[in-house]
């Protein structure tokens, strides 16, 4: 009994660890692929060199982030089978086809055009190259569409039956794909990816604005200004929309997974006459109360029910064996919301600076934007922890318990693989992050190189060999 519990816990840690590492890269590359498409489109439309320079600057970073996303994603596609085989057997008929659609419509599209996007500018010309960039950007979106449909079905399953072998079987595909939490989750996650990327781009722009200020340059570089301005527009526009989307997602969760919202809010007790909003406190799962709670009366009812005195049920209406781990959900939710508020503040300050014509001359704003560089990743991870830990103790909410989902593996096997994942992920991906930071530390230059060095790939018969180059023979020997 003890050993099966250990193996289950280890498998959960392994899945959580590998998926948390993985989500960082797509969260960045979904936004960055779209940003690259916008930059290239603007370059084609206006012919301004700065857009091409920025495109070439960010595509080098994209190449590294994308490679890390691919290899960490490959792990995910096999881990359902290796570690969650009972889950795979039972949900395969419903979730397998959705994931297969992700592979067919998204992964191949991204991978098939990535080569052209990274290396093919000189071979296919700017217009076809732009199409390749668009294909990659759409691929990242399709990928988000399908995998979030899968994930949402695990939270709000519908459109299925159960066969004699105990498998979930599809009855209505439309209902399965567009399950109740999917539209909210999709919007919330795609906006999160855009915000995350905008904050990274903004931080890099801010860093170079700050550096240019300290240098002898009479004016900051055009590349740094352009990326900073674009990023701040995104933050100013998307952050408030995201908070609105998050609120709607929360209300949807209240309808379908009330226990998760109770954990997020720290509501152990029911409040028939308006529930307080607990700002901070120490949730005590054992005792079923929040210690040292700092709370605003009735505000939670206002937020969730749009009425001060609306009754809200607490975890006392849910059997204890169905409680999610309240402290984790409670805190991760607050971290996510806190980050969201800071993003809103950054966007508002940038609008203020812009109105006063000081967007590029306000070091305090640049310092704030720089500090907010990683905020998107923190918010994404905290948000995922909130929603996934909040789904516990189920894998398919209300229908399949996590404890009944795992593979029949012994603890040493899972422990060994977990160790290997932790060591290798930290080693490999921290190197990747260092390489990305090194690229970001360099300023975007006029005439920036892309991934290719600018030398066309020499294919037989296209590029003349140097010895046959007429210009070269006229030049004196060096």
């Amino acid at each position, binding site marked *: 009994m003890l050993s099966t519990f250990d193996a289950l816990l280890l498998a959960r840690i392994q899945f959580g660890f590998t998926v948390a590492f993985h989500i960082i890269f797509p969260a960045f590359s979904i936004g960055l692929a779209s940003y690259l498409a916008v930059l290239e489109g603007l370059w084609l439309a206006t012919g301004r060199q700065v857009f091409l320079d920025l495109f070439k600057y960010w595509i080098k970073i994209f*190449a590294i982030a994308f*490679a890390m996303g691919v*290899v960490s994603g*490959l*792990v995910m*596609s*096999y881990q*359902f*089978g*290796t570690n969650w*085989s*009972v889950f*795979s*057997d039972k949900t*395969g*008929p*419903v*979730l*397998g*086809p959705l*994931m*297969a659609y992700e*592979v*067919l*419509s998204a*992964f*191949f599209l*991204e*991978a*098939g*055009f*990535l*080569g*052209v996007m990274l*290396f*093919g500018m000189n*071979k296919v010309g700017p217009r076809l190259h732009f199409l390749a960039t668009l294909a990659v950007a759409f691929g990242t979106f399709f990928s988000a569409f399908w995998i979030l449909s899968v994930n949402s079905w695990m939270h709000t399953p519908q459109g299925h039956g159960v066969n004699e*072998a105990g*498998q979930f*079987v*599809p*009855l209505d595909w439309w209902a399965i794909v567009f399950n109740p939490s999917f539209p909210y989750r999709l919007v919330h996650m795609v906006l999160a990816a855009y915000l995350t990327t905008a904050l990274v781009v903004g931080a890099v722009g801010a860093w170079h604005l700050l550096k240019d200020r300290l240098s002898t340059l009479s004016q900051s570089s055009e590349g740094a200004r352009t990326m900073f301005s674009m990023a701040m527009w995104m933050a100013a526009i998307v952050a408030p929309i995201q908070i609105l989307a998050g609120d709607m997602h929360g209300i949807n969760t209240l309808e379908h997974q009330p226990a998760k919202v109770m954990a997020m809010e720290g509501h152990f007790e029911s409040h028939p006459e308006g529930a307080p909003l607990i700002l901070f406190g120490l949730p005590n799962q054992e005792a079923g109360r929040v210690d040292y709670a700092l709370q605003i009366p009735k505000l939670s009812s206002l937020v969730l029910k749009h009425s001060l005195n609306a009754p809200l049920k607490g975890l006392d209406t849910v059997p204890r064996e169905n409680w999610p781990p309240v402290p984790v959900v409670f805190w991760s939710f607050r971290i996510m919301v806190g980050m969201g508020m800071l993003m809103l503040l950054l966007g508002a300050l940038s609008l203020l600076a812009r109105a006063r014509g000081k967007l590029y001359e306000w070091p305090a704003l640049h310092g704030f934007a720089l500090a907010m560089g990683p905020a998107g990743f923190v918010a994404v991870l905290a948000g995922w922890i909130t929603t996934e830990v909040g789904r516990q103790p189920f894998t398919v909410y209300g229908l399949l318990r996590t404890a009944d989902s795992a*593979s*029949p*593996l*012994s603890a*040493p*096997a899972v422990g060994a*693989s977990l160790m290997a*994942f932790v060591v*290798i992920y930290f080693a*490999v991906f921290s190197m*990747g992050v260092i*390489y990305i930071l090194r690229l970001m530390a360099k300023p975007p230059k006029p005439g920036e190189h892309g991934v*290719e*060095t600018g030398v066309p*790939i*020499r*294919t*037989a018969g296209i590029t003349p060999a140097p010895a046959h180059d007429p210009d070269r023979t006229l030049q004196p020997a060096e």
Partner: protein
Amino acid sequence: MIENLDLTVVWAFVIAFAVFAYIVMDGFDLGIGILFPTLAPGPERDTAMNSVAPVWDGNETWLVLGGGGLFAAFPLAYAIIMPALYAPIIAMLLGLIFRGVAFEFRWRDPAHRAFWDVAFTGGSVVATLAQGIALGALLQGIKVDGRAYGGGWWDWLSPFSILVGVGLLFGYGLLGSTWLVMRTEGPLQDRARSLSLWLAGATLLAIGSVSAATPFLEGKYWERWFAMPNVLLTAQVPLLVAIAGFLFFLALKKGADRAPFLIALGLFLLCFVGLGISIFPDVVPGRVTIWEAASPRSSQVFILVGASVLIPLILAYTAYSYWVFRGKVDSSGYH
């Protein structure tokens, strides 16, 4: 029309196609990783790397389709096979991580390029060995208990699975060396040519030993290969392997650029057909048939509708991508 089709069989062929597409495409780029230590640091290695850099990511996606397709069409098989092959699958994934990031990292960090070259080779070797071992372990039989894997976590390890793993190492190495013969020129091509010669010998030897050992494993392999009248058909496979081997050495001797790679692919196709003869219609050999493991019909139809449009589309733009980067490569190309 679709009502009369046995979609389970259709799906078995779709997944077999995905797996074979993976072997065809990722085989040569894993092979280049395996052969990396035999190439000189500098232009030779850079050229070899450049010849696969624009396409490796797409190549690896077929592996995701193989796994994802199995999950969708044969969830029970996916649920039994993955835990049974736990250690080799995890090792393969970790190997693929190292070699995947090495494509980018070795260009970004010239000071540690030697380290990332070792990672590229190590990752490729581990991933290949793991794939071969997984295949061997699948062939030698997996313990099944109800709807789950019923064995221990070292069951996959046996002389037979090691033999298949090493054999695949030679096989992918051969695909890599013949790919370089096709895509490069000068000293690198000469070196690839001489490597191809002994790799082809080793691969044929491995094919011979694995084929000789397989009928003696537990299961119905003997029956499927040697019972009349099957034997009239199955006997053609080793015959064709012998002919392909002969043609290969002939092509190599004549200095052909493309033929060695294409014939090497032909050898893999024959092995794959042989594998099909051995296990069809089982998906977990000797334990679970494709019909027992299949998803309900509505799952099969739902994904087949998309697959029948998307797979041809994927093949078309994959071909386009290969066409863009066609011809001989050199070290100055990308990056």
